[in-house]
């Protein structure tokens, strides 16, 4: 049965076209994966169906839900549809919940708003729904607050809110992008199970084909407001017709070419028994404050020219460790050495030692001062030089660094908001390269990027590593990314390193149970397709 039928949908906002006539059908019990990169209009498609559009929008075409045209309804009638017949799951579970209300309240609200029962009945529905999404009553009573839950648990609450009234259609807009890979796998399983049990139609929006490969029945590939290819998922993966689809599939599991191993047996970074503790609040007024060991006796080393991956979920201490290695935070035990010299969070650390390390952060939007021009941003590490450069020399070197990362020297005069996410990440790499460090720490440096941009940045990193004999410490929660660019990988969990070894060896023959779990949940088109064939 066709639940949702969208025909020739066009949308423009303030005159600029966003969607150029897209059509698709969603069947009961089916998962339709809408795949596209940022700006492809995939989220706007979802918002159009919900009629949650910004001011200045002009929507044309027809959106039929079980035969009723939603475009003809007024706002009051639409409110009756939203939540009751179409549920929505958002990307960011941290902001989709109201922090000052209990989870029971928030799930019950959906029921009450639609007048489907008294408060008592609503709370009963909330309880049943939370049980269904895997938050059982004994561990997750209704009076829990969102901040008491992890990201994955919060996303389960958001899903519970969306399915409380058993809507016909569920729209999930990048529901797992903000989550760790293992949590992601669990949430995807949950969604698939709910679709099968309730006969819902799920519109699953994602930028990564790997994420939907295991669960989508049909796919629609979007690009710049058009659906370029649509059809059954098996057929599209078997024989993608459109060049863009092929590029997306290639980018999802992209492996940049690696040069010959030029690793030298010279340790560049040595981390020995490093401990980093945080004070936690006093449990009671007079009790001594507690301690939390974020990094708990970690040892490893990175040799010159070697690319090492550090993989773990959020909260495992990998970012804390990064900051300690950079000499930004003090450590409470152990020792960190760079090229034989001790790294110290005090300002006593010699400039020559600081010059050996640079960093690229995850968020291409937060890594730059929005008020400075690119030249000043990229030139910032020159502060570490003993002699300031002349203005001409500075400009020449900024230009050279931009050139190296595939931008032009003329970009130096522009402001950061004029660049896209991928370009910003290139600028971040240019900034890291400019004082010719030996080691670059890449803290989730490609996690926030679209798959095709990610593939380009990985290629760039591999190329730079080869040409400049750089070492990388590649920090990520996503194993597949690390696999593509590293020689050796460290698996970190709860402040400790649980497994370490050559990347391919670890992937082929993981020893630790946690590593196996990470590998199993990592989104990968090939393995997902293999799974589908079996079942």
């Amino acid at each position, binding site marked *: 049965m066709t639940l949702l039928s969208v025909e020739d949908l066009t949308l423009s906002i*303030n005159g*600029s076209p*966003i969607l150029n006539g897209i059509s698709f059908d969603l069947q009961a019990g089916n998962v339709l994966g809408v795949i596209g990169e*940022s*700006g492809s*209009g995939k989220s706007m498609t979802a918002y159009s169906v919900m009629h949650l559009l910004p001011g200045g929008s002009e929507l044309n075409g027809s959106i039929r839900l079980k035969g009723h045209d939603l475009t003809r309804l007024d706002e009051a009638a639409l409110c009756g549809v939203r939540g009751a017949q179409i549920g929505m799951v958002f990307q960011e579970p941290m902001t989709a919940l109201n922090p000052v209300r209990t989870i029971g309240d928030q799930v019950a609200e959906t029921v009450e708003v639609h007048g489907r029962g008294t408060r008592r009945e609503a709370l009963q529905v909330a309880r049943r729904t939370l049980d269904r999404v895997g938050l059982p009553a004994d561990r997750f009573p209704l009076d829990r607050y969102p901040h008491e839950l992890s990201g994955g648990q919060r996303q389960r609450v958001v899903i519970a809110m969306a399915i409380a009234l058993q809507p016909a259609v569920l729209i999930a807009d990048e529901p797992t992008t903000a989550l760790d890979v293992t949590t992601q796998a669990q949430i995807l399983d949950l969604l698939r199970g709910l679709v099968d049990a309730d006969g819902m139609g799920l519109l699953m929006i994602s930028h990564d084909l790997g994420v939907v490969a295991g669960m989508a029945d049909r796919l629609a590939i979007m690009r*710049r*407001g058009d659906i370029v290819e649509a059809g059954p998922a098996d057929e599209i993966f078997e024989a993608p017709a459109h060049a863009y689809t092929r590029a997306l599939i290639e980018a999802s599991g992209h492996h940049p070419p690696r040069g010959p191993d030029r690793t030298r047996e010279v340790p560049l970074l040595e981390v020995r028994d490093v401990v980093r503790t945080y004070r936690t609040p006093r449990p009671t007024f007079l009790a001594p404050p507690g301690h939390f060991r974020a990094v708990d006796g970690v040892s490893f080393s990175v040799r010159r020219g070697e690319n090492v991956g550090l993989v773990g979920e959020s909260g495992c201490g990998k970012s804390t460790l990064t*900051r300690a290695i*950079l000499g*930004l935070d003090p450590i409470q035990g152990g020792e960190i050495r760079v090229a034989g010299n001790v790294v110290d969070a005090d*300002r006593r650390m010699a*400039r020559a030692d*600081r010059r050996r*390390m*640079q*960093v690229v*952060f*995850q*968020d291409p939007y*937060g*890594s*730059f*001062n*929005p*008020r400075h021009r690119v030249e000043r941003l990229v030139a*910032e*590490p*020159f*502060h*570490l030089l003993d002699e300031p450069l002349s203005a001409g020399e500075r400009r020449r070197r900024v230009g050279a660094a931009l050139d190296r990362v595939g931008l032009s020297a003329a970009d130096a005069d522009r402001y950061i908001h*004029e*660049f*896209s*996410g991928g370009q910003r990440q290139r600028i*971040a790499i240019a*900034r890291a390269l400019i004082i010719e460090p030996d080691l670059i720490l890449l803290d989730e440096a490609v996690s926030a990027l679209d798959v095709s941009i990610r593939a380009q940045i990985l290629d760039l990193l591999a190329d730079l590593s080869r040409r400049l004999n750089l070492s990388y410490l590649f920090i990520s929660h996503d194993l597949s990314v690390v696999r593509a660019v590293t020689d050796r990988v460290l698996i970190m969990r709860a402040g400790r390193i649980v497994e370490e070894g050559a990347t391919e060896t670890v992937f082929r023959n993981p020893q630790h149970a946690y590593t196996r779990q990470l590998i199993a949940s990592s989104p990968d088109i090939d393995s997902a397709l293999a799974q589908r064939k079996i079942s």
Partner: protein
Amino acid sequence: MSEADLPRAPSRFVALLGTRSFVVGVLLSAVFLVGGLISLVWTPYDVTVLAIADRLRPPSPSHWFGTDQFGRDVLSMVMVGARTSIAVGLIAVGIGVALGVPLGLAAAALRGGFLDDVIMRTNDLIFAFPSLVIAILITAVFGPGAVNAIIAIGIFNIPVFARLARGAALSLWTRDFLLAARVAGKGPARISVEHILPNIANLLIVQATIQFSLGILAEAALSYVGLGAQPPVPSWGRMLAESQTLIGLAPHVALFPGFAIVLTVLGLNLTGDGLRDALDPKLRRGRT
């Protein structure tokens, strides 16, 4: 649509002119600023000369705002009074910004440290006292006068700016670009000036316009109780105080300085609102 194709936010200046409250606010404030500036070189009548024969005249072509109980021209007095009010407001805000912002930035840079505690708890202490009462205390101890009023009002601006600067700076300190600056070996003082100050300037400017109008009100209040500018320097607050017994007889004497206070404060607040809307890139994009 790629990100580069997003409609560009209009420049700040264009955005400002498109903000109705900003334009109205600036025009209102400018009327009084210009009046005060003109009074430096020329006023319709000399405000130090008494003309008892012409006292309490209602508004007329020769005296647009009428005359007061000593026969002085009210328009001239409002013009000269604008000088006092604007000077008090400006200098009091200046004291607050000059001392409060560095303290707030230092507290944020050393967050969680001893100095942070000292600065912020001292702030709390100052905040805990009703400002006008303390201002009265200060002027009562050190003698009434415009200078002491300015200092008293200025002291209470310090914690306002310190707290604002610290709060805004704290959220910036968690941003990656400050980590990048630290990786580049820059110290907290340098980062505060180079990276944080430009990013919180919007907030500070807006707060300054609000404190400016509060300063004018505070000066009027102090003058009203006789602790602000002393005779013969005209002040809007004192003009109000001196005319209150005549309110039934000659309401214009009280009304015009009253209007002056209300309209200046309104103008400054509107300017602040407009600046806030226009300087915030998010609000700016949402409005166009």
